[in-house]
């Protein structure tokens, strides 16, 4: 039995259909990240699961119950928002206990749960403050605390870290992951446009674009075997290199050809059957290009070197185009140097040039 199940759901704003028959199953205790650029519909989907938005058709099941027409409070969910959404006129304690007070929970029980959540998030010393006396990181902790005391089976996060600065974002990210591990069976659905958050937090990532699911898979799968050009380009920084070319037959085995560059595809794990002459796009991640004095592909000149401490990104080009290479931080490289590259065929991705799908 899955914790959250979105079955053939359509959402419409006025006359515009936002989703058409979207289906998604989330296992109990799973950490699911909905990843995509703004406007891809990930927040809309989250709001539909929360019940803050009416669906036009389809069903939403949470914890084995059809909750499609139930009020948000009856769905056994808790939600954390990007703008924290703390009640400004209430103290931290009142903020956290608001839901329980609405549900007429007995006072000792409220005290106990607030205390537990506050200790877990290390905000006990803030309980009597007002939200405007807190920093951004503290506010988001309180917002998470407010979700925690609800004792919900499913947590919904709507870009919870996007308003924080980089350092705090990293800290809270780790904390959310730790929280998920500690809570055990709690299912988490997390919306973000930040691929690092998605990669580090998720058990499975749902990549979305234009209101459609592009790929569902573990972070490793998404990164190594992107299902199409969009996923390949969206996930990974620096971006994956794309090289236009076509498939040719040589000695009975397929080969990738782009101008004078060739790459035998003997070790490539095809998902379909390539045909000779098919137009394709080769995707290579910057770290899967090795710099050699003599390599598979030669004749590149370095344009720009971007040292990043632990590693380094080298932009190099020849007449046919430019590539980014990620290499160790201690590599000696300067603009104007010439270099050759070796491509590991087991690590590349091939996409059909027309459909953009992986082949």
């Amino acid at each position, binding site marked *: 039995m899955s914790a959250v199940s979105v079955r053939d759901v359509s959402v419409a704003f006025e006359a515009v259909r936002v989703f058409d028959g979207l289906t998604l199953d989330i296992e109990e205790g799973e950490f699911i990240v909905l990843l995509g650029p703004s406007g891809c519909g990930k927040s809309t989907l989250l709001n539909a699961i*929360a019940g*803050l938005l009416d669906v036009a058709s389809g069903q939403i099941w949470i914890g084995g119950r059809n909750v499609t027409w139930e009020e*948000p409070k009856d769905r056994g969910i808790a939600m954390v928002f990007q*703008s924290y*959404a*703390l*009640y400004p006129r209430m103290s931290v304690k009142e903020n956290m206990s*608001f839901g329980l007070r609405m*549900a007429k929970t007995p006072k000792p029980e409220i005290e106990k749960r607030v205390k537990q959540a506050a200790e877990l998030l290390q905000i006990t010393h803030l309980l009597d403050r007002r939200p405007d006396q807190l920093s951004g990181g503290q506010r988001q902790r309180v917002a998470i605390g*407010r979700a925690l005391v609800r004792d919900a089976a499913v947590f919904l996060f709507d870009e919870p870290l996007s308003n924080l600065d980089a350092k705090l974002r990293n800290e809270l990210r780790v904390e959310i992951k730790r929280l998920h591990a500690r809570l055990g069976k709690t299912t988490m659905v997390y919306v973000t446009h930040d691929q690092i958050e998605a990669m580090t937090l998720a058990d499975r990532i749902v990549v979305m674009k234009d209101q459609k699911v592009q790929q569902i898979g573990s972070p490793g799968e998404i990164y190594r075997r992107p299902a199409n050009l969009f996923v390949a380009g969206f996930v990974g920084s620096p971006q994956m290199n794309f090289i236009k070319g076509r498939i040719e037959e040589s000695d009975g085995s397929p080969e990738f050809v782009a101008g004078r560059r060739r790459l035998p595809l003997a070790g490539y794990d095809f998902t379909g059957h390539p045909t000779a002459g098919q137009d394709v796009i080769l995707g290579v991640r910057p770290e899967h290009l090795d710099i050699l004095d003599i390599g598979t592909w030669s004749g590149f000149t370095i344009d720009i070197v971007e040292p990043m401490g632990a590693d380094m990104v080298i932009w190099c080009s020849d007449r046919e185009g430019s590539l980014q290479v990620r290499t160790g931080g201690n590599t000696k490289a300067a603009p104007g140097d010439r270099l050759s590259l070796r491509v590991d065929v087991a690590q590349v991705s091939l996409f059909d040039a027309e459909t953009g799908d992986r082949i």
Partner: protein
Amino acid sequence: MSALEPQGRRPRHLTIGRVGVYAFLITAALFFLLPLWIMVVTSLKPMDEIRLGNILALPAAMTIEAWTKAWSSACTGLECNGISVGFWNSVRILIPSVILSIAAGAINGYALSFWRVKGANVMFGVLLLGAFIPYQVFLYPLVRIFSMSGIYNSLTCIVIVHVIFGLPTMTLLFRNYYAGLPIELFKAARIDGGGFWTIFFRVMLPMSTPMLVVATILQTTGIWNDFIFGLTFAGRENLPMTVQLNNIVHSTQGERAYNVDMAATMLAALVPLVVYFVSGRWFVRGIAAGAVKG
């Protein structure tokens, strides 16, 4: 080495242009203060002194007789109980009207901006249209409606009228204020189990202090200064202060008691004056924030 000096002549602060501006501002201020000055000094003079005609002069023998007369024994038509009757009538009209119109406007604004009712925009448009139609157009139809329902010429009647005519402005004010609040606050409250009224009273209303202050100012001054609704709908027993002031000023037989007229006028203006002085800062802020007509 000596300290570096900025080069050239220091820019002068007192230029001819600046002097001109100040001269204009002072003249304008005097121009607007003059009537008030005349009213204050006249109200403190006995009639003998007023007859001499030095309207700008300070009173030689200062007396507050005119004020007490205006308050408790000036004649409004046949009765001679002063303007105090009208004052208390105005208070009785003011308090329920202000409270009810603000409550209705706040609830309306809250419902329109958060609860996405079908056709909310159309309703809001119609309501706004109401704010721009001249009041006089409504007078006769309303008189007919009220007299048919049997509450014409009563306190209830005048309060209902004030609430109806306050509704567009109040709704606009609160709708715009609530539209500026993050919608996520509302979503969070819904997930926490709040219904229509709990979210309104426990989350939204506590955040509305600035708008409540502005709305109170707008409605208090507007309703207190009202003349035509009071005259038309309140009935003889409940005539507001403005109507009684008119009666005092225009019903005097023989010699006109300027000092009493002045004192009565200032008494009638007291409430809005106090409201403005106490809350001017809030008022400006609210006008700017809500962008409503004053």
